[in-house]
């Protein structure tokens, strides 16, 4: 796994963006950008050569699930690994995200080791 990969963290709460960013830094990643919803994130993804997307679900403007769908329908972004970190915990929603092509799903509240484990798992699969 490339520790220099470019990561976009999308969440409408600045507290959560900051926490995720700090956890990623502890895991050795430092090339991290932030966006506060899908509307802001999508053009960044389209222009920014990102390697990994970490997104919340429930956000004003464009939700995480809509962002995921937009990413999967954009030929340039379709292969981008996407991890959802969200408080949305209905089984139906997790299935919805899986069907939309999510690579990993973490429910809040979560912790550092869980984030590490899911990221490692995602990149093991992407590379294999």
């Amino acid at each position, binding site marked *: 796994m490339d520790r220099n990969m470019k990561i976009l963290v999308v*969440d409408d*709460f*600045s*507290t*959560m963006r*900051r*926490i995720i960013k*700090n*956890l990623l830094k*502890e895991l050795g990643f430092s090339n991290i950008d932030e966006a506060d919803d899908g509307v802001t994130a999508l053009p960044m993804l389209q222009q920014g050569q990102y390697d990994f997307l970490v997104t919340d*679900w*429930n*956000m004003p403007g464009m*939700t*995480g*699930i*809509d962002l995921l769908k937009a990413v999967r329908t954009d030929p340039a972004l379709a292969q981008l690994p996407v991890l959802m970190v*969200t*408080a*949305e*915990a*209905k*089984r*139906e*929603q*997790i*299935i*919805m995200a*899986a069907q939309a092509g999510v690579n990993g*799903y*973490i*429910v*809040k*509240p*979560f*912790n*550092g080791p*869980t984030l590490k484990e899911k990221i490692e798992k995602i990149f093991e699969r992407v590379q294999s």
Partner: protein
Amino acid sequence: MEQNTQNGRIAAAQALLDAARAGDEDAYATALLGLNQDTPLFDEVGRMTREVHEALMAFAEDDRLNHLMQDDMPDARERLRYVITLTDQAANRTLAIVEEAMPVAERLMDRSERLRQELTQIAAKEPENPRLVTVVHTLNSYLDSVLNSGDTLKRHMTEIMMAQEFQDLSGQLLLRVITLLEQLETKMVGLLKVTGARSASQSSTPGASSSASGMHSADELRAGIGPAVPQTAAKDVVKNQDDVDDLLASLGF
């Protein structure tokens, strides 16, 4: 049956019959009304109608209600928003301090590690000097304890950082209560308008609809329904990350 009532009814029926025979529409209608008025049901409906009317008038003219709509409800929403702002400030302040403290602990650990290596090299050069060897040994065990404490400190700081997650979850829940208040306000204003209230607050735009029943439409699910609250958590909500992993595994993940 009382004689009077019976006589009255016969008279009313007779009046209806007379009016029908005479072809007098007005008299017929009056007589018919007179017959109906006699029934308890008619009385009861009339009384209830009057009560509802009076209640609605009292409702519309109650200044407290207008006050509630114009001041109290928006005020309550503002207060809740302020709670979100305060928790956001507190969480970010804590995170800023953790972000500053973390590198301090790391520097302390780095320098201790380097110092330990240097001292070990110095001691290795003069193995015949017992005092130096003893001092280096003592210093090294102190530096080991610094490294251990540094690790503990970093772990605790990570915990403090993760604890700030409450701000996101509580903020999302409060935003939902704010939306609910907005909807309630809009409905109350509508009711006030129907009953002809003198003035009602300008209704704010209602937020996304959310059903109280716990059932969510696909649209609601897509928009996100917010964190699960322990007391209201339903069976279709996963309880923890293990549940998520199991569910995803069952989908071939």
